[in-house]
C-alpha cells in the first residue's frame, strides 16, 4: 500500500455482498440509536453517564467488517460502540453496561462503553488514553511466540491518544518486531475540547508512520467501505507476516464528549453543522438506496426492527438487578482480597 492519502473512492462494493453492505449499515444505525438511547436514559435520570461516538459509525462499521471474528483480537477504546457491536456485542450487553447491572460482563464495575469479551476477542480496557496500545502490541507478540499465523490484532484510538508517549512506544516496538498489529486512528479532530491544531504541529497522523518505518494509509472515516478496504488490507498484511500498519480514518465527533460535557463552550455550531454534510449514516443510507441495495421502505423497516430490539433490550436490562455490595470484593486476586495473612 502506498503511503499516501487516498481520496475517498467513488461508491464501490469492495467485494462485499449486499448482505454485508446492509450489515454494515445495520451496525451504524444500531450504534447511533443505542447511543441516543444512552443519552435519553441519562437525561431521564436513569443512568449516571453515557459517552458519544456519533460521527464514528463509518470507520467502526468498516473496521468491524474487516475484523475476523474468532481469530483476530481487538484492543479498542471507549468510543468504539459501533466496533464492539460490529464484532458481535449485543444491544442487550450494551444496555446492561449502561445500566451497570450485575450481569454486565464487568459485573457493573466498568464505565459504559468499556466492553470486554473473551468470546468476541475484545480486550479489557481502562479509560487511560493509549494505555491499551502496548497491551495490543504484547498480544501481537504472544501470537508471534506461539506461531499463530493468520491472526492479527486491531488496536484503535482517537487523535488525542497520539500525543501520549505510549502511543510512540507502541508503534515503535511493533515496527522493530514487525508484529501482526494494525493501529487504527479514529481522528475526530477533538480531544474533548482541544482541537487538532493544539494537539500537533501537522494534522496528518498517518504521516508519522514513516518515522517508525511503518506503512500507513489515510481514509475518509465517514465512508465505511473505504474504511473496510483500508483496515482489511492492513489486517491481511498483518495476518500474513507483513507487519504493522497505521491507518488514519478522518471522521468527526458530532456530539459532546460525554453526557457530562458541553461542546458549545469550545466549538461553534457552524463548525458542527458544516461536518453534518459528511454524516456517515444518512450518506450510506442514500448510497445503498441509489445502488438498489436497500430501498427507503426497507430502510424504514430495518430502523423499526432495530428500535424494537433496543426497546426490548432496554426493558430487559433495566429489569435486571444491580450487583450486590459483596461483588465489590470479588476478583481482586485469584486468591484472598485481604492484604493481611
Amino acid at each position, binding site marked *: 500500500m502506498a503511503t499516501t492519502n487516498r481520496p475517498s473512492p467513488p461508491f464501490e462494493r469492495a467485494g462485499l455482498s449486499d448482505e454485508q453492505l446492509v450489515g454494515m449499515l445495520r451496525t451504524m444505525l444500531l450504534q447511533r440509536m443505542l447511543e441516543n438511547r444512552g443519552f435519553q436514559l441519562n437525561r431521564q435520570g436513569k443512568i449516571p453517564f453515557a459517552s458519544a461516538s456519533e460521527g464514528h459509525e463509518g470507520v467502526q462499521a468498516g473496521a468491524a467488517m474487516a475484523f475476523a471474528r474468532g481469530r483476530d*483480537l481487538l*484492543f479498542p477504546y471507549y468510543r468504539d460502540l459501533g466496533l464492539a457491536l460490529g464484532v458481535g456485542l449485543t444491544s442487550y450487553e450494551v444496555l446492561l453496561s449502561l445500566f451497570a447491572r450485575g450481569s454486565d*460482563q*464487568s*459485573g457493573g*464495575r*466498568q464505565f459504559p462503553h*468499556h466492553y*470486554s*469479551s*473473551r468470546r468476541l476477542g475484545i*480486550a*479489557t480496557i*481502562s479509560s*487511560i488514553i493509549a*494505555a491499551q*496500545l*502496548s*497491551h*495490543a*502490541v*504484547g*498480544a*501481537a*507478540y*504472544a*501470537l*508471534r*511466540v*506461539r506461531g499463530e499465523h493468520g491472526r492479527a490484532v486491531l488496536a484503535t484510538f482517537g487523535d488525542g491518544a497520539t500525543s501520549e*508517549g*505510549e502511543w510512540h*512506544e*507502541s508503534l*515503535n*516496538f511493533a515496527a*522493530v518486531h514487525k508484529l501482526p498489529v494494525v493501529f487504527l486512528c479514529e481522528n475526530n479532530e477533538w480531544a474533548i475540547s482541544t482541537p487538532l491544531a493544539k494537539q500537533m504541529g501537522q494534522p496528518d497522523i498517518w504521516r508519522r508512520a514513516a518515522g517508525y518505518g511503518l506503512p500507513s494509509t489515510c481514509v475518509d472515516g465517514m465512508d465505511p467501505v473505504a474504511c473496510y478496504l483500508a483496515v482489511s488490507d492492513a489486517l491481511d498484511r498483518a495476518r500474513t507476516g507483513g507487519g504493522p500498519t497505521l491507518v488514519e480514518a478522518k471522521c468527526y465527533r458530532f456530539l459532546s464528549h460525554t453526557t457530562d460535557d458541553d461542546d458549545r463552550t469550545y466549538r461553534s455550531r457552524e463548525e458542527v453543522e458544516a461536518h453534518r454534510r459528511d454524516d456517515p449514516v444518512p450518506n450510506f443510507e442514500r448510497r445503498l438506496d441509489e445502488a438498489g441495495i436497500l430501498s427507503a421502505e426497507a430502510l424504514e423497516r430495518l430502523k423499526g426492527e432495530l428500535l424494537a430490539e433496543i426497546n426490548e433490550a432496554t426493558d430487559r436490562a433495566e429489569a435486571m438487578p444491580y450487583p450486590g455490595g459483596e461483588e465489590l470484593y*470479588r*476478583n*481482586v*486476586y*485469584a486468591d*484472598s*482480597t*485481604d*492484604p*493481611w*495473612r
Partner: protein
Amino acid sequence: MAVSSPTQTSQVMNNVDAVRATLYDAMKNDPRTVILGEDVGARGNVFLITKDFAKEFGPQRVIDTPIAEASIVGIAIGMAMEGLRPIAEIQFADFIYPAFNQIVGEAAKTRYRSNGEYTCPLVIRTPYGGGVRGALSHSVSIEALFYHVPGLKILAPAFPADVKGLLNAAIDDPDPVLFLEHKKTYRLIKGEVPDGHYTIPIGKANVLKEGSALSVVSYGLYVHWALEAAQQLEQEGISVEVIDLRSIRPMDKTAILQSVEKTRKLLVVHEDNKFGGIGAEISAMVAEEALFSLDAPIRRHCAPDVPAMGYAEPLEHEYMSSPAKIAEAMRELARF
C-alpha cells in the same frame, strides 16, 4: 518452607545467582515464559543475571527492549492477557516511574475490571535499594509507592533460598507480582539454596531469630543488619526477635502479632523513608489489634524524609542505617 524434594541437596549461592538460576529454570521449563527489559539480551542484564539466556533461548524469548519502561510493562501485560508468562525487568527500580500507570492502573486492575475474564500473570523484577553509591536515581526504595495498591503483590526477599522460592511463587502466581531485589545483597549475601523446584508461600514472614525482649520487623538488606545487631545485643543480655517479612503485600499479620504478643515491644526497621512507609501500616495494624499487649510505644527506625540519598559518601552514610544504628534503636526500645 515448602520444599518438594525429600532427599534434599543444596548449593551455596548468592542472591544474584539465585535470581539467575530461578529465571533459567523458568525459561527452560515453560515455553510460555519470556523475559523482556533493557539490556537483558546480548548484554545479559547489567548484573549479568540473564547472561547467555538469549543464546540459549533465542532473542524471541529474551527481548532487548527499547528504553521505554511504560511499554515494557504494558507489552508484558498484553502478553500475559494472551497466555504468555512474561517476566519484565525494570533495570533499576528508580526507572519504574514511567510505568506507574501500567502497573497501578492496568496490571493491578485487569482481573478486577474484567470480572475475572482477563488476568495478568506477570512478574516485574527490579533491583532496588542503596548503600552502593547509587545516588538519586540508582538507590531508591519503591515499595511504599506500590503496596497501597490492591491487585498487586509485592515481594522483597533477603536470602538466596527465599529469592528462589518466592521468585518461583511469583512466576506461578496468576496475578501481577512486583519482585524487589536489593542490589547491595546481590553478591554480599550467600546461603544454601535447595536444588529442584520449590515455592515459598507468598504472604508468609520468617522468624529468623527468636527473642523475648522486643520484636524487630524488617525486610531486604536491613534484615541482615537487624540480625547482626540482634546478635550483638544477645551478648549484652538483650534477647531480640527478628522477623523477615519477605512479602510486603500480602503481609503476615499472624507472625507479627504472635511475636509482639510475646515480646510486648515492636521496632520496625526499613531503608525506605518513614512517612507513609511500610512501618506505618505495620504500626497501625499492631495498634489496632494488639495495643494492650504493648509495654512501650511502637518505634520505627527508617530513612529520613528526604527525596533520596546523595551521591557523596557522607550523604549516603547519613541516609543509610547500619548494624550499629539499628542496635542503638533496639537498646533504646529495650530500655523503655
